[in-house]
């Protein structure tokens, strides 16, 4: 039995000859809150569609709960055990909130009425027609449906899109709460780096269809450091920094360095210059993200 709830190896997918995924590897441990990040068109939604079995990979292997995601009978078992919030947040506009809850409940024998009632009240969704709901409200309704059937895994494609700051904060708090109380694994894609940083314990950043950074958020923040070196006088020739330097920006006597490791050696190298002072700063997820996905 695999330790990973989601596992992808060498996942490739092209559309009309245009590669979208170029060998994606992904490992999502049970019980984690996993942030899946990337620019528009990086391959996040394609990855999610492959995990859901909506698409089939050109090559590589995607598994959810250890079951092959592309297999139709395994797909049924996977979908029974997970909850999904789609990118478009579209459901059946002819139904009311009560009707879609009744409809969805019919497919899940372990439906949790207590969770349904809790979120119905919390999200203030009762007595409305789906076609009258805003995207943010539909997002909350989808989350209610996903959570209430006792899902072991939630796959959320930009779940906070369309929500106002208060509603977004409420939803993030509920995601953390559901993960803590039910042990639910949460895999969510987002463009909001601050919210990923707020709730995720693990992240994966993809760019051009492959993972460029993956791991525990705490480890990444320990591994990545920003250093500011102030030299006694402006350097005439650029310094050849050691291994681990990801990005260097020089402004007069001041050099800003983003390091992804080997930090002590870089500091020692900087201090070897007469009169140089070095300060280190923690990095944000945004800095790590921008460093890895900027094409320039």
């Amino acid at each position, binding site marked *: 039995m695999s330790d990973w709830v989601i596992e992808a190896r060498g996942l490739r997918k092209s559309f009309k000859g245009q590669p979208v995924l170029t060998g994606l590897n992904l490992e999502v441990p049970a019980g984690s809150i996993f942030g899946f990040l990337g620019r528009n068109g990086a391959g996040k939604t394609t990855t999610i569609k492959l995990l859901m079995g909506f698409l089939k990979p050109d090559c590589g292997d995607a598994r959810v709960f250890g079951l092959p995601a592309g297999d139709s009978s395994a797909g049924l078992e996977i979908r029974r055990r997970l909850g999904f919030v789609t990118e*478009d947040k579209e459901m059946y506009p002819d139904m009311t909130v009560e009707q879609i809850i009744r409809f969805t409940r019919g497919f899940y024998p372990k439906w949790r009425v207590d969770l349904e009632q809790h979120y119905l009240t919390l999200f203030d969704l009762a007595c409305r027609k789906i076609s009258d709901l805003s995207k943010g409200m539909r997002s909350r309704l989808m989350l209610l449906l996903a959570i209430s059937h006792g899902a072991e895994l939630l796959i959320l494609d930009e779940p906070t899109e369309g929500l106002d700051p208060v509603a977004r904060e409420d939803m993030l708090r509920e995601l953390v709460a559901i993960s803590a109380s039910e042990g639910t694994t949460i895999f969510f894609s987002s463009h909001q780096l601050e919210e990923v940083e707020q709730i995720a314990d693990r992240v994966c950043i993809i760019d051009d269809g492959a993972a460029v950074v993956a791991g525990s958020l705490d480890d990444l923040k320990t591994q990545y450091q920003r250093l500011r070196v102030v030299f006694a006088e402006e350097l005439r020739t650029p310094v050849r920094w050691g291994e681990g330097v990801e990005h260097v920006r020089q402004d007069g006597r001041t050099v800003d360095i983003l390091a992804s490791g080997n930090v002590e050696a870089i500091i020692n190298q900087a201090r070897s210059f007469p009169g140089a002072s070095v300060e280190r700063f923690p990095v944000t997820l945004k800095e790590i993200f921008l460093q890895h996905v900027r094409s320039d």
Partner: protein
Amino acid sequence: MLWYKGWLETRPRVLFLIAFAWLLSPPGQLAFLFALVPILLAGSGIETQFPWKTKKGPVSTYFTLSLPVSRFRLFATRAGLGMLETVGIFAIAPCAKWVLFIFIGAEDYVSRSDLFALWVSLSVCASAFYFLGVLVSAFLDERVSSTISIVAAGLLFSHSSPAPVNLYRAMVSPLSAHSLPWASMGISLGVAAVLGLAAWRVVQTREY
């Protein structure tokens, strides 16, 4: 529950088509328009919303596909429901008109046996049109599939085709021939089976 969902989606169309079929009864020069009934009710169960409900393309597809239901069940339920609705409309509209004619004392436009034969031939001959619509809706959302199906139906089962293939004429032939159009019904069922299997194959293998 999938039946319920399908019914909610098609309900406005069913009501509209009952009225439409009522106006076409008793079948006359415009009898070929009965073919619109199955085409407008056809659906393959995945891309399900009808055009006037939404501003953009296929909706709710991913929500539907995320349910723990096989694609076969989605397809079979929706295709079965649409066919049942078609058969129901063909039963309700001409019969209601017939009852009305009797009630108001007007001349009986058709005998009871011919009325039953009309229902059978309408329903069976409609199956070819219906599964043509199902096949097209397996590729396209219902926004465009109905239009394309109508054009395709016009081309495939031309109004000027020879008798057994002319399903438009066969549908209402019991009123003039006083017998069922067995050859046309056989052709229709055969075509419906082929189109239905092709539609299922598309739904089974298609990526969304």
